[in-house]
């Protein structure tokens, strides 16, 4: 749990990609049916470090994301449990119909991990910067959609979805995230985590924007505004009860995501609220824009994804 007084949010010791690789190694060693698929980005997600240990359970399919998704469906059809990884745009935008038809419509068991999400794609720029992936996968009937905020959460969810049949998409960054949880924290599907309680406004965030929201809550507190901060790592299914409960309590909701405001967390929360508890709301996220090259900090400023932007949005609806 976060201490509300803490003003600095420390990066974890472990990179998200190290957590991905070590968890996949553990899963594969414990279950011969777990097969990890890559599309020539193994060294970007550190699975190149584990390949020697699980030959045959880690396959580099080459630069063929659409084919890789179909191959994953074929593996699933015969009882294997494929974990498919590439950068977020390649496993969603690039291979969407294969994911949709061969994976989801055929009702197969495929786990997908999209990395380098949003502004963290940095110098790969506009072609590589996915602000749409959550929206795309959320459109698929019965798909489970997560955006992880820290390494413990990533490891936990990777293990959890092994046991659950169906399409699961996990969105992550590759490098270090702010450490939010201790080792034994658990994460249910369809639930959010309240990281901080405050009665004036509820900030609902996912991924890198959770830490940004905690910073915003500190800034708001200095100005006498008490914010609740929720890590909504499960974007679909989404924690309807928690959203309605806090919207009702605080009468103001701001969402924050490193993603287009259309289709992702902001959309999901507003859909819940407009039907069940209409509430004054603002969405922090990318608005009608494409990606571009730059450092993540610069891009956060550019797309208005900073703690200060959250503060401004809160004040608009206070």
């Amino acid at each position: 749990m976060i201490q509300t007084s803490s003003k600095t949010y420390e990066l974890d010791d472990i990179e998200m990609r190290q957590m991905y690789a070590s968890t996949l190694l553990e899963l594969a060693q414990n279950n011969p049916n777990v097969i990890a698929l890559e599309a020539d980005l193994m060294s970007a997600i550190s699975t190149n470090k584990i390949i020697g240990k699980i030959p045959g359970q880690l396959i580099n399919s080459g630069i063929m994301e659409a084919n890789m998704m179909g191959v994953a469906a074929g593996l699933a059809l015969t009882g294997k449990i494929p974990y498919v990884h590439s950068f977020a745009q390649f496993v969603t935008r690039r291979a969407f119909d294969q994911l949709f038809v061969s994976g989801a419509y055929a009702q197969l068991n495929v786990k997908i991990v999209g990395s380098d999400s949003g502004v963290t794609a940095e110098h790969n720029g506009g072609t590589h910067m996915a602000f749409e992936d959550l929206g795309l996968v959320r459109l698929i009937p019965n798909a489970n959609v997560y955006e992880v905020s820290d390494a413990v959460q990533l490891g936990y969810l990777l293990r959890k979805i092994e046991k659950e049949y169906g399409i699961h998409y996990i969105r992550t960054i590759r490098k270090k995230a702010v450490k939010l949880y201790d080792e034994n924290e658990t994460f249910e599907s369809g639930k959010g985590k309240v990281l901080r309680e405050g009665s004036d406004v509820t900030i609902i965030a996912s991924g890198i924007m959770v830490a940004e929201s905690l910073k915003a809550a500190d800034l708001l507190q200095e100005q006498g505004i008490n914010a609740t901060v929720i890590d909504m790592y499960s974007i679909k299914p989404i924690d309807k009860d928690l959203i309605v409960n806090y919207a009702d309590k605080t009468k103001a909701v701001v969402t924050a995501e490193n993603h287009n405001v259309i289709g992702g967390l902001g959309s999901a929360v507003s859909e819940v609220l407009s039907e069940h508890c209409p509430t004054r709301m603002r969405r922090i996220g990318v608005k009608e824009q494409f990606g571009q090259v730059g450092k993540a900090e610069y891009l956060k400023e550019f797309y208005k994804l900073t703690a200060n932007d959250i503060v401004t949005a809160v004040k608009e609806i206070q």
Partner: protein
Amino acid sequence: MDIDLRKLEIFRDKIRLLTLKELHHMGFGHYGGSLSIIETLAVLYGEVMKVDPNNPDWEARDYFILSKGHGGPGLYATLALKGFFPEEVLYTLNQNGTTLPSHPDRNLTPGVDMTTGSLGQGISVAVGVALSHQLSNKGNYTYSIVGDGELNEGQCWEAFQFAAHHKLNRLFVFVDDNKKQLDGPTKDIIDPLDFVEKFKAFGFYTMKVNGSSLEQIYKAIQKGKAQTDKPVAIILDTMKGQGVPYLEEKADNHHIRPNPKDEEAILTAISELEIKLGKAGAMTI
């Protein structure tokens, strides 16, 4: 041969020099795949292509699409030398707010004909451009470079079927066969088998040349232009990091964040090229 090889060699060396300087200034980037296409860029922009730096959108120009978009820094150095924009702009590569992103963007950079970076997509667009000119009975040529790893993508082979079916003889596909992709040797990831046989089977007029030989590349293009009913494939036998022996030998040379040893080798390569060009009386870029 009817070209001034000496002049072309100087152009090549200048492109290599500026590519190294620009990547070094940024601090990291796709050295391997930027360097392996420099001879081809030198022949295309130095001798073959009809372009006008003062009028990048000139309708009668030849088109160039870098389907392996991560080679952008090599293309940018070439375009700067041709006069599409000042050399200083090169040193904004990948900086916040730049007009020169890692991957080429037609909306940001004068002389860049198409936005690429998602591998496999540029080549289809090149086919579309060639088709358009054929439909309008225009004489423009379309040149495109694909990576050997990029050819993993099924979309490339869809593009090739389409090009051959429509007899797009003014389309030139260069395969930068540097034998490596991101995670390692192409042969170990998805064995490409024999590109020459593959392209022949797909209906291309196919040649294989030494991709570090300006002369061979030039001659292959002339031969390709002489035939009239097939698209042309030129398989370039290249090396990642080409032209800088240290980088050619470095195992992990796709995307480099130089360690102190790399740094020294890169700086040495830069000064060697400067000295070589200085002796040739060609240092003013």
